[in-house]
């Protein structure tokens, strides 16, 4: 028996594509999932007490921590009432040997950029609500998203992490004393952010131009280069469609992805709601 497992492992390393193909012919994935099945997802809110809002998201073995820290800053000259929301994704060598220490890798930069575009284009948070005193002081929210364990589908984990952390943010009540030019804030953290929508994502890979794999793992990502990400909101509207690589994607694939993404939305919303309830009890 032990020699057999060894052989399968060797086969996987030598012929990763053929290895995956053999599984998919039987409509099953190497980790025992069905093609349309997401990995178990958990959300843990407020896990870092030194932040204004935080969350820890697990999708299978992929783990992402998002912490949001609020600081006071001067607004831009051109938009005197707008605060800032600065998302940053970090993929350190800790999460996978693929990443080297040093400046952010291309992958991390693309994740940050796409998250920033999502925040801006879907206007999830009205930046005017971050104003303390027009022209003098606004809140700046640093959203640091750190990947702790990389096992594929990190974008989904990052977006869920960011959105849940944002809904977890509590800001102190702040006033601007004009004579002293100082911002005074209360000790207690009271004011939640007013988010206009709560979008959640779903990611798919197309392998061999025919198999649609939901929520790919790192191994699946490395051989299936055609990736589709759909982000929907609670009203069923779409906030992002992102598709790169491969030439086999048709509108049929997209329709299927969108309908699965909507089912996934309900699933994640339920997980988050449960977590919020249990968090409030403590």
């Amino acid at each position, binding site marked *: 028996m032990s020699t057999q497992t060894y052989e399968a492992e060797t086969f996987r390393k030598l012929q990763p594509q053929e290895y995956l193909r053999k599984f998919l012919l039987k409509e099953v994935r190497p980790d025992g999932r069905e093609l349309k099945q997401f990995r178990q997802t958990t959300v843990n809110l407020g896990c870092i007490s030194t932040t204004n809002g935080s969350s820890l998201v697990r999708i299978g073995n992929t783990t992402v921590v998002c912490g949001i820290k609020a600081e006071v800053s001067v607004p831009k000259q051109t938009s005197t009432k707008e605060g800032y929301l600065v998302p940053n994704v970090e993929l350190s060598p800790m999460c996978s040997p693929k990443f080297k220490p040093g400046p952010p890798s*291309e992958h991390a*930069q*693309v994740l*940050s*950029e*796409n998250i*920033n*575009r*999502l925040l*801006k*284009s*879907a206007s999830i948070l009205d930046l005017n609500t971050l104003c303390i005193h027009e022209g003098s002081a606004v809140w700046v929210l640093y959203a640091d998203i750190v990947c702790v364990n990389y096992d594929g589908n990190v974008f989904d984990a990052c977006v869920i992490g960011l959105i849940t952390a944002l809904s977890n943010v509590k800001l102190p009540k702040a006033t601007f004393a004009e004579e002293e030019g100082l911002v005074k804030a209360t000790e207690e953290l009271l004011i939640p952010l007013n988010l206009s*929508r709560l979008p959640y994502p779903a990611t798919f890979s197309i392998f061999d131009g025919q198999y649609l794999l939901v929520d790919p793992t790192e191994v699946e990502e490395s051989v299936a*280069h*055609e990736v589709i990400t759909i982000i929907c*909101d609670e009203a*069923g*509207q*779409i*906030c*992002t*469609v*992102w*598709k*790169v*690589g*491969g*030439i*086999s*994607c*048709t*509108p049929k694939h*997209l*329709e299927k992805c*969108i309908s699965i993404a909507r089912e996934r939305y309900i699933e994640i919303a339920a997980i988050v709601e449960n977590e919020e309830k249990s968090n409030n009890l403590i």
Partner: protein
Amino acid sequence: MSLNRVDKRKFTEIRPISIEQNYVNKDGSALFKFGDSAVLCSINGPTEVKVRDEKLDKATIDVLFKPWIGSPGTNEKTHELVLRSTLESIIQANLHPRTLIQVVCQVLMDDGSILATAINATTMALINAGISMRDIAVAVSCVICKDGTILIDPKEQEIEENQSFHTFAFNKVSLNLLFCESFGVFTEKQYFDCYELSKTAAQEVINEIHNAIKYNITNGR
């Protein structure tokens, strides 16, 4: 109704396209313009590759995207990833193992839909460089305005006030979706409307590319 756009175009009309190949003295190059948006793309290769980037079974494709003004940021990095993954699925990289194909895109003028312009410029430069490809990629952008109208190939001014912004790239043979980037808030129906309109517009781009190649061949360039 057609007067509603800033430059008096119809909603589904693309801007005039201008294509110039052999623009700089490289293995292959092309200047592609969508109206005032212009991207210059030059190709080097297949050439020697650094050992670190070497792939045993295919050519390494390296993309550099230079913005019009300022230094490259995360936006340009994202464009690079998009271009690279698009090219990897259309270039026959397995014909040139252990080599490097370097693609450099320089934005000469940015008046909206710059990523689509860059993808088209790259396609023309690759054809000019004589790199073997399975297929060619053509790209078109569109926006959905607040009132729900869809504008194909928007100018910068039209992008600023929109509900959502989409860029689609299709392959020529089957007109399947190569790349899609859609941000904003929109419904499923609106998305597929954009998809179909962009596909029609992509066909027009393909025709223009055909004409440009024909012109170059008949004039012996």
